[in-house]
């Protein structure tokens, strides 16, 4: 992956109040169109609540480079990933195998593409990587640069679904 032009990244200014609803809208549109599912915000709960425990078994990462540099990730549990794939493919969840990894990566890819397309002046100047999938929740990611972060937590099949955008300054 490489930036598609030499325009300095500073030409795009991080704007949390504007970008947060755009990220939420980008995720909602992807789930609505590709899964026929309406996403709603996940109700606030404590980090150690049963609803949160073991809810991040699958993570899909998509890198952004160009006027936006960073990573978009989505995170959910195994069953949620399986149901996402089943809804995308129109087949019962029990018939979904490794497609759940692939489906999660594609969803992350579409949310990232949808989001950057909504930012004025970014769509043409930001490239996306091929998605990466992490299985398991016991990991940390560290950016080499200070990052701005936007996170939206939705409810999907009674479990939390995290959509996170981390951008290098």
């Amino acid at each position: 992956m490489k930036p598609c032009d030499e325009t300095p990244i500073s030409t795009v200014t991080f704007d949390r109040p504007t970008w947060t609803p755009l990220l939420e809208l980008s995720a909602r549109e992807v789930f609505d169109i590709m899964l026929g599912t309406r996403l709603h915000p996940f109700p606030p709960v404590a980090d150690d609540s049963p609803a949160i425990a073991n809810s991040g078994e699958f993570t899909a990462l998509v890198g952004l480079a160009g006027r936006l540099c960073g990573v978009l990730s989505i995170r959910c549990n195994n069953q949620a990933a399986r149901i996402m794939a089943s809804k995308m493919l129109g087949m019962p969840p029990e018939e979904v195998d490794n497609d759940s990894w692939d489906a999660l990566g594609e969803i992350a890819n579409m949310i990232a593409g949808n989001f950057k397309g909504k930012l004025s002046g970014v769509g043409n100047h930001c490239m996306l990587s091929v998605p990466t999938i992490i299985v398991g929740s016991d990991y940390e990611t560290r950016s080499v640069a200070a990052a701005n972060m936007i996170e939206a937590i939705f409810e999907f099949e009674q479990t939390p679904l995290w959509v996170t955008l981390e951008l290098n300054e």
Partner: protein
Amino acid sequence: MSQIKALIVDDSSVMRKIVERSLRQAGLDLSPVMEAGNGAEALCILDAHPIDLILSDINKPVMDGLEFVRQLQTMEKLRGVPVVMITTEGSESNVVQALSLGAKRYIRKPFTPDQVKEHVLPVLGL
């Protein structure tokens, strides 16, 4: 028209299945659909099988969709095969480049089956 021989090029097997299902929902009478994970695999398939329609993602490993379309245009027997790009890219420049290289249409992900129908039928003259 006899059964349509379609080739779907995408590194995601889920997306290939969704595109195939959308083609069938569009009412196309398809022969078994050929699939490739990247442009290089697709060129191998095209070398061995006659194809009526190609649907290709842009952003994929090994050989991306733009390079794939570029190479198609250099091959006499494949130049006339209609190509519809399917892309996550919000980038107009990539889309314009794909069209200038010879792609007939593009569909932006996320997409509905109706959008696939709207773009695919005209390139098949249907």
